[in-house]
């Protein structure tokens, strides 16, 4: 018995093209998702979400930045007291702007990346 498998080269070529399309789409989607999360964190800090507002001079709010690469995006703040606001201290309750924004938007992040790939 002999089995002929046809179209392998075409399939491989198609997969190579698809890979490039998926990679491009996912990188773009990651940037869009990171922007979305950045906006969500800022909204949280401004008091437009469930968390109490953490705005006084606006330094913390304006410090929320993002870095997006090919496979990872980070939304962060480099203000020294951001850790204390996020995680709390012995005198203030945690505000969890970043953690809660991430948890609320997990599904949305997936949707944004998926829609950028398809």
């Amino acid at each position, binding site marked *: 018995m002999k089995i002929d498998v046809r179209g392998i080269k075409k399939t491989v070529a198609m997969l190579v093209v698809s890979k490039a399309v998926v990679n491009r789409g996912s990188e773009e989607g990651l940037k869009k998702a990171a922007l979305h999360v950045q906006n969500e964190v800022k909204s949280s800090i401004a008091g437009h979400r469930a968390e109490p507002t953490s705005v006084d001079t606006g330094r913390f709010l304006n410090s929320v930045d993002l870095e997006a690469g090919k496979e990872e995006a980070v939304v962060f703040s480099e203000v020294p007291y951001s*850790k*204390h606001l996020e*995680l*709390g*201290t*012995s*005198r203030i*309750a945690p505000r*969890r702007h970043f*953690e809660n924004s991430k*948890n609320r938007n*997990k599904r949305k992040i997936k949707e944004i990346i998926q829609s950028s790939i398809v």
Partner: protein
Amino acid sequence: MVAKSTLLLDSLFFIKNDLISNITDPEGPNRSAKSKFVVTSYPQRNVHYPLITIKAINIEALRAGMQTTNQDITMNFELRIWGRNEKEKNDLYEEILNRLNSIQFTASGSTNNNLHHFNILSSVEVDEDGEGGQVIKSRIMQVQYKFYG
């Protein structure tokens, strides 16, 4: 045993009771009757360090199938170790880490109490100046358990 109807309460108390029974309180007999070593909320009154606070910070529940009300539930807990110095904080952290890891598959451990798939997601340090010049050291351990039901 952690039950679906009292999921949060049972989970918090499982962790709390296990830590109370098995983690050595550095203050021991010196701790006042009004002060607790392990609590499930941030205390409103003055506290006696060291202290461990446990809070549930996120719960996700995904449907386990189309024809069932069962869910795959993922719970994230924050265990915060508050110490008076670096060594106290680190020693307590390691003791808790080893304890929770070692009781996963014991007879009365987490898996037999329906808390599965123990993972440590992060351990972050937050130090601050306390009152009267005291420095308060804290390490926040985020752990995850899964529940099915």
